[in-house]
């Protein structure tokens, strides 16, 4: 190497290092700002580096993290089709390492594990019943853990909390309503009215937490009276307020304060009754109130839940037919009902 080349190299190195010294704090500050706003993902862990295949490694080294995540999510479909659940889990762990702020991957990975893998385990007749149960539980927990891991990246995302709530309140899984309520509580904290109502609905299904549920319903009503436009909310609020164990100062609503008229009250409560019977929603004085409304409105037997035979859900059209062909009285309005506000 000639002296001139050496001199050039030294000058170039000094020039680059000198400007490097000036730009380093600026770059670090911008990096931290972007990281705080979650525009820059956290560094890839040593473990993840080790698990990466050659193609993904090359992609990541070239600065194509999100592109690799997209293509890997397509490849994950193959594991799903082949029912290679552990490979699928590993694949989604890698995908979420590469693109951790994409909710879709957390949602999808959790869904594959908690729903698809768990359902496969539950219905797989090649396995012994104990093994089936063990595996199903394992995949349910893996799905739950995956959602929770996603929440460490997106802690304020109500939809991931809601997914956990949905998982543990799903009657086709292994419902754990307390876990579902805890998740829905978080979703309600960050989310909109829908998540708040979901939290209330779960609480109304947990024996012993009815008073807490009524408190939540009352609070929701103070925040926004439009919740009363949702039939399930109306029914739950009314039934919870018929709880005989309520303390003195608890909210107690009358039928007329919740429903527009007796016809609406009957239709809603009639439709709510199967939820009480099948899903464990709080019923309170539901049957007593329904019976009195049946008497007042002269409800025909086919829409009377206490008469034998299958009972269809009441919609406007079948209710209208029943009204036209029987002696159901015109809707009786309540004084000061919500509809007259």
């Amino acid at each position, binding site marked *: 190497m000639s002296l001139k080349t050496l001199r050039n190299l030294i000058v170039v190195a000094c020039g680059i290092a000198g400007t490097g010294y000036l730009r*380093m704090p600026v770059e670090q500050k911008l990096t931290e700002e972007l990281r705080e706003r979650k525009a820059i993902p956290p560094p890839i862990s040593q473990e993840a580096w080790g698990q990466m295949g050659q193609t993904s490694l090359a992609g990541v080294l070239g600065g194509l993290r999100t*592109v690799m*995540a997209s293509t890997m999510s397509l490849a994950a*479909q193959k594991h799903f089709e082949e029912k290679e659940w552990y490979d699928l889990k590993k694949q989604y762990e890698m995908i979420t390492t590469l693109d951790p702020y994409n909710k879709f991957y957390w949602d999808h990975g959790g869904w594959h594990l908690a*729903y698809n893998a768990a359902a496969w385990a539950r219905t797989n007749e090649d396995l012994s019943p104990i093994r089936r149960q063990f595996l199903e539980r394992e995949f349910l927990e893996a799905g739950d853990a995956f959602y929770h891991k996603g929440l460490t990246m997106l802690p304020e995302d109500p939809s991931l909390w809601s997914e956990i709530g949905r998982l543990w309140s799903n009657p086709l899984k292994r419902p754990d309503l307390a876990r579902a309520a805890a998740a829905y509580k978080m979703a309600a904290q960050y989310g909109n009215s829908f998540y708040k109502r979901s939290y209330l609905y779960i609480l109304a299904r947990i024996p012993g937490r009815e008073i807490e549920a009524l408190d939540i319903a009352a609070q929701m009503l103070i925040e926004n009276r439009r919740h009363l436009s949702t039939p399930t909310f109306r029914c739950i609020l009314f039934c919870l307020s018929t709880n005989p164990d309520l303390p003195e100062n608890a909210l107690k609503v009358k039928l007329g304060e919740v429903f527009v008229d007796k016809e609406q009250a009957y239709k809603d409560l009639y439709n709510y009754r199967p939820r009480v019977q099948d899903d464990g929603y709080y019923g309170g004085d539901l049957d007593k109130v329904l019976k009195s409304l049946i008497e007042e409105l002269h409800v025909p037997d086919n829409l009377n839940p206490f008469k034998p035979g299958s009972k269809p859900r009441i919609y406007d059209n079948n209710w209208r037919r029943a009204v036209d062909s029987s002696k159901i009285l015109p809707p009786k309005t309540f004084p000061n009902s919500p509809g007259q506000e």
Partner: protein
Amino acid sequence: MSSPSKTSFFSPRRVLIIASSTVTQLVRMKVFYFLAPIALLFVGLQFFDNIFYEGPETMVPEQQLRMHKNICLGTMMFFTSLFAIIFTALLIPSDIEDRTLYTILSKPVPRLDYLVGKLLGVISVLFIAMLVMDLLLVVTLHYRTAAISANLGHYLTEMGLPKTEIARGQAEVAKHGPTILLQYGVLAHFSKACVLAAVALLISTFSTSTLFTIASGFMIWIIGSFQSIARDGIFNAADFGEAPGLADRILGTLISLVFPDFQLFEAIADASARAQEILVDDMMKLGGLTLLYVGIYTVLSWFVFSDKEF
């Protein structure tokens, strides 16, 4: 008798002439042919639909658009970065080989003008290529967004949702369409390509082999994507649990000082693909860094090139 006019230190006119001849030189190398398969890829993505994105449980229409953007932006970044290195690495050796360099430098053309002209020529070609790819992206994404939005509207109407909810869902989809945020991502990738071109120019002033310039350019591209890890180790040593040793600190400092940080460019582009908010201030800072990188590499290239003998 007129006195001989003194050659100015830097002439934008001369630079523009050299830049335009560089563009012609590169166009003759048929560099724009790569746009044909890219156009096919972008259009082909329009018809790429995954069954596993369908169904109520996984109804996330934005993800299809996000994937479209990720693949398109990734392709744009890959090709512009690749060509930024290769084109620049080829230019000076090509000028030496066909003796154009001697013709130019025997005239009163300062070497700075020559280098800046060459770099500007490469950047212009990259800009044209990026513009074409960006247009393709915007058009294909526009149609994709419209189709997905219409599908979503149809699906939500069938579910009986009120019009306000449908409009809200469609507005969410529109956010992932061709917006200004997307252009920030394209701009970030273009800026990165400009820095890589300037890096390759600096290396090519030293190097005697095109292959060495290309290989070194690629290494800097790769190391630049991880430079921030080394820098984090210096600024946020506490976050790494165990404090790095002396050797690690020296290595980290050297990497941070010498190599450009490409993660910032990639982060902005990724955030734009996620339709995440990017501030004008962020773009200004990124623009400032790009100018600093291109400026310093060009000045250093000039320093090395100024007394280079051919």
